[in-house]
């Protein structure tokens, strides 16, 4: 809706649309015979900057302002780094609640907006969820401009490009798509751009809203995107030809596309020796296998395939299980459920209460359950192994999917023994292989095999760190969009 050429009508319209909000201030400023009105939302704008840079300036310049062309004078001579000329009511309201001060003139169908944003953001802090030993420890904040700055600070090349979008009918959140011009594949950018343009949601709370809106209904439970709060990791990924999605008011960014192997990478990998990284990645892969398979294999061994246990171990198992009245499946399910409750409690409980929960849960519950004969000690060990192994990953989505697959395999193992476990593994691998992330195969670079990309897969070659190449999103291994 275009603006009318009447100051009072514009103000009336704003009042009407905002429901006469009490935090919107209207200040008339008489100059000669004319009156201009300053409109600003005092909750998101800085009062001192309005006083210092607009009101005082206009007061000083009163004499000059008595000329006829008041509009162009204000536009040209009031100093401000961010000035907008507004012609529609929608824009006016958007900037009003973005911390701008609107200046409304008589007989003018344009509004001038000056930026006087209040700083409502937390400062740059150390990364909490992805801690770093050797690398830089700053992390993204909730401030969109700061976040952009953190990326620009690291990649000063003019090739760091980004497209900006406004998403959310009510929240009007800024979303930016970062990529390196000339490295990233244009098709991928177009694909993601069109997806973001088609988003139709009311409110964007965090990066996760965007992820849910652009990802297809996910058949398998494994996540097909990577979120990080480390700007250094985001830059490394940008240089590998991926795109980074940044969402206003969120301290995490999304990296797309994301392969399965990326969950085994850690930002700190790039600050360590390649050989050590190889070791830790192997450890992470084994941790994943252990986390998913240990309870299932234990159940099938104990309930179906006794002959595969060495006899010495069999005697131990059999003595320890002596007097436990429940089936092995029941034991495992109870203990893993208890562990999940503990974990949930530990995470949500505020402050220092967490450690007392783990003492009560870990020591008292575990020890007492064994002594009471409800579970056997070996069960506690098995649940412990799989739980600890699942915590080797920082991505909460991945941990959740590991939990699901643990459960699925436990059920299959309890029904069909080893055959069931093997069946479950085949399904798991098939699902992983059928996954797509932005049209790229999820199991890349192993399937389809890409020799070049092996340099930053399980092994980390020095050359891929020092001269990152676009190996994932290059045109020649591009596939159909999912």
């Amino acid at each position: 809706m275009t603006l009318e050429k009447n100051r009072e009508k514009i103000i009336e319209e704003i009042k009407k649309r905002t429901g006469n909000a009490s935090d919107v201030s209207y200040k008339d400023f008489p100059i000669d015979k004319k009156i201009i009105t300053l409109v600003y939302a005092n909750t998101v704008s800085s009062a001192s900057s309005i006083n210092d840079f607009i009101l005082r300036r206009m007061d000083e310049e009163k004499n000059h302002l008595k000329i006829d062309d008041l509009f162009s004078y204000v536009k040209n001579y009031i100093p401000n780094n961010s000035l907008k000329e507004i012609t529609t009511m929608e824009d006016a309201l958007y900037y009003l609640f973005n911390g701008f001060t609107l200046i409304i003139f008589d007989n003018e169908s344009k509004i001038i907006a000056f930026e006087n944003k209040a700083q409502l953001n937390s400062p740059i802090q150390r990364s909490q969820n992805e801690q770093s030993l050797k690398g830089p420890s700053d992390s993204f904040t909730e401030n969109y401009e700061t976040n952009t700055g953190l990326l620009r600070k690291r990649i000063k090349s003019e090739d760091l490009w980004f497209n900006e979008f406004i998403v959310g009918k009510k929240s009007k959140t800024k979303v930016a798509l970062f990529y390196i011009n000339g490295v990233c594949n244009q098709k991928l950018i177009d694909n993601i751009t069109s997806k973001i343009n088609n988003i139709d949601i009311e409110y964007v709370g965090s990066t996760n809203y965007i992820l849910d809106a652009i990802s297809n209904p996910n058949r398998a439970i494994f996540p097909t995107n990577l979120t990080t709060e480390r700007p250094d990791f985001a830059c490394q990924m940008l240089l590998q030809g991926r795109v980074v999605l940044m969402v206003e008011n969120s301290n995490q960014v999304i990296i797309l596309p994301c392969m399965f192997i990326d969950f085994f990478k850690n930002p700190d990998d790039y600050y360590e020796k390649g050989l050590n990284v190889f070791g830790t990645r192997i450890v992470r892969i084994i941790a994943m296998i252990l986390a998913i398979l240990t309870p299932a294999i234990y159940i099938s061994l104990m309930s179906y395939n006794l002959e595969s246990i060495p006899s010495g171990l069999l005697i131990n198992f059999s003595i320890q299980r002596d007097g436990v009245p429940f089936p092995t499946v029941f034991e495992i399910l109870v203990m893993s459920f208890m562990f999940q409750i503990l974990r949930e409690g530990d995470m949500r409980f505020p402050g220092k209460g967490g450690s007392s929960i783990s003492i009560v849960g870990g020591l008292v519950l575990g020890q007492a359950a064994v002594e009471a004969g409800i579970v056997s000690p070996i069960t506690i060990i098995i649940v412990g192994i799989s739980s600890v192994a699942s915590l080797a990953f920082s991505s909460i989505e991945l941990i959740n999917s590991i939990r699901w697959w643990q459960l699925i395999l436990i059920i299959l193992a309890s029904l069909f023994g080893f055959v069931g476990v093997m069946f479950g593994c085949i399904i798991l691998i098939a699902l992983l292989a059928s996954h797509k992330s932005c049209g790229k195969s999820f199991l890349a670079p192993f399937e389809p095999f890409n020799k070049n990309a092996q340099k930053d897969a399980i092994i980390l070659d020095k050359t891929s760190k020092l001269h990152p190449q676009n190996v994932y999103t290059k045109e020649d291994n591009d596939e159909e969009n999912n």
Partner: protein
Amino acid sequence: MKKIIKILIIIIMLTSLTGCFNYKEINDYAIVSGISIDKDDNDSDKYEVGIQIMNAKKDEETDTSLITFYKASGSTIYQALEKIMLDSPKELYLGHNEVLVLSEELLKEKDPLNYLDYFMRDAQIEKDALVMVAKESKAYNILKVITPLETIPSTNLKSTLNIADNFSGTLTIITIDKFISDLTNKGVQPVIPTIKITGEVKEGEKMDNITDSDPAAKLKFDALAYFENNKLKGYLTNDESTGYNFLAKTQKETYINIKCDEKNYATVRVKKANIKEETSFKNKKPTVNVNIGIKADLLECNCSADFIKDNKSIKKLEEKVSKKVKNLVVKASNKLYKENSSDALRYGEKFYEKNYNEMKKLGYNKKSIIKDINFNFKVNTEITSTELSIKAIKEAKSNE
């Protein structure tokens, strides 16, 4: 949504209303670790089967498992096992059986093929269990003796035999499936280790046996037993057993003692023995030429010798070792082929494979050829290392 609910109901019904195929918790089983078969003294057609169960109950003090023993007799092995199952509160699990002890008496009287069928037919039963013969006592007594180092007798037997197989030349291990396949193979006869109890059998059954520093009853492996016509014929001596292991190529590490001067002895360890055999008909008589090439280490030498200055001294030792080994294999072949006709070394089969035409021409078959075989042995020894010292300590003293 309705579909999901339906599927959920089906899954719940499947898990709660039906049993799971083959589902059995570990503590529903009594794990059998050893089986013994004896002749029933009251009824000669029946067999007395003893089983040892290794997870009977938990010893609260040491946290180890205690064994228990059951015995029953039946016309078939399974009938006896079934009788035991009626007595025991748990189902027998034979998948981890470690030893099969057969009694001397039964092996001497009956072909084992008459009663071992169950061990090959049952899918669950362990076919890798070791076979041995109980000498001078009932087979089930062997399973009752508790020994200090390993509280479970069957595990004790198995590991002792495995160690002995690796570090002495006199024993060899044979599993149930190998034993049965040797028996079913016409002409070939198996050789199995023997086990006997030394000391008081009655004392060995008690838990006190393991608390004494010198237990009243001990289990002891003896040399090998050989068969003729699928029946136990007799026992080899230790020397013959060593010789047998050389010829059967089953020796791993063998220690050989030789006299190096009038009173003193030396020991060598045979690391590797290269055995080449050749079967032929010389003057229409079946002949086997065996070349044994031995590589050995000198482990102990109690005679005076300096291996650097006098290079003849090591030659002398080598010759003596060759002579000794030749003596061992001659003894073994004489016992098996001349005195008895037990083709434990499969020469009948080897002639049949390689010299079939001549064998037919001269009217021999796999069995009849055994008695006529002539053996020619040639042993060549090389002592490759004298370990840490290059001369004997005796020599060092005399030099001063």
